[in-house]
């Protein structure tokens, strides 16, 4: 499929949108909010003859691996899959429950264990649920700050839903605004251009992006030695 804006090719399969939900109850309003934004984005895309594929990272299932990653820096198998899903993501909907006037610890911890450069330039819609409208600024003060650090392209419209908002038309309208922003950001191909044309300009940690962060080939003999492997026997290359 050809990008309508700049003619670059996007994957034939459509845009990959990933929902990250920090909700812990079942059913979870935090998950429901993210799903509504994702569905609306997919529907808007359909109206423009584009496709959006949604996958979901439900942090409930990762809680144990996230807490061990926090102390050991080692990623378990589910967390490794989640990181791979995010690396391939074209856009992200990040949805957190507000606990004690802050995004939940599970939600924050998940983003704390990711490599700093994993999400650079990716479009993000922030969403949060809370019991009270009084905590609305948590999204702009805390979540926006976290994603600024991660250098994502965070959409101007965030979606906050207090208990009393669920049946209001205003929430639906806001979801529509956020979904449209996400779609336009996906169409722009911004994150792919950053990754393809400007990746070296960003600060990276060694190994954070499997070697691409430094523009070096970790498969060369020198790099295999430098990273603790052994050089291939001469003549075997």
């Amino acid at each position, binding site marked *: 499929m050809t990008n309508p804006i700049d003619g670059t090719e996007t994957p034939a399969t459509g845009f990959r949108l990933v929902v990250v939900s920090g909700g812990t109850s079942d059913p979870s309003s935090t998950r429901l909010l993210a799903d509504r934004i994702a569905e609306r984005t997919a529907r808007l895309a359909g109206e423009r003859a584009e496709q959006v594929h949604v996958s979901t990272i439900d942090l409930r299932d990762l809680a144990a691996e996230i807490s061990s990653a926090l102390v050991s820096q080692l990623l378990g198998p589910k967390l490794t899959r989640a990181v791979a899903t995010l690396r391939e993501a074209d856009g992200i909907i990040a949805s957190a429950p507000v606990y004690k*006037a802050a995004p939940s610890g599970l939600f924050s911890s998940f983003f704390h264990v990711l490599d700093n450069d994993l999400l650079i330039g990716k479009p993000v819609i922030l969403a949060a649920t809370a019991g*009270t*409208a*009084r*905590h*609305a*600024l*948590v999204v702009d*003060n805390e979540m926006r700050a976290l994603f600024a650090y991660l250098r994502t392209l965070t959409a101007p419209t965030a979606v*906050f839903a207090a208990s009393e908002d669920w049946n209001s038309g205003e929430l639906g309208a806001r979801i529509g605004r956020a979904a449209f922003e996400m779609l336009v950001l996906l169409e722009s191909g911004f994150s792919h251009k950053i990754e393809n044309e400007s990746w070296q300009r960003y600060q990276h940690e060694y190994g954070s992006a499997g070697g691409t962060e430094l523009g070096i080939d970790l498969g060369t003999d020198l790099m295999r030695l430098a990273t603790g492997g052994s050089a291939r026997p001469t003549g075997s290359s």
Partner: protein
Amino acid sequence: MPTVLALSSSPSRSSRSAAVAEYAVTALRSGGVDANHLRLRELDPSPLLAADTTHPEIESAVRAVAEADGILLATPTYKAAYSGLLKVFLDLLSQFAFAGKAVLPIATGGSPAHVLSLDYGLRPVVHSLGAWHVLQSLFVLDSQLDEALRPGEQLRSTLEGVLGDFTHALQAPSRTATIARSA
């Protein structure tokens, strides 16, 4: 008798936040506190903006801050933050102007979505001025005041509790120790 200085910081003449400050001052007085209200909009704007603390009006405002045991900060909510007028005044105070003092932040605003602006925006500033005790901040919705800017029944009872805590903080025994340390 403990002293309180209420600083109200709205640029508007018929100000909701000033009305709440005035109500609080009257209530504090009837509770035996020597309370006074300074409306920052009445200070001469050019020495205020130039931080000219030698100007008599600014000098006496700064002295009133220094002499108070407690400071009540009343501000409107503008663009999800406290007023610029309040920041202009706080900026001309010395670095630890609130040392040893109890501080009660109160904002009026139109939307409950901006309640946390006091804790995110104003609280760190008050701490950096060295306040000894910053009380739980109070956000007053415009709808809690009537047309004459008088607090409704619910707000009056909230204020009674909040001002009670504030008065208590003015008299807490550790205050004198803190003042002695900072002297």
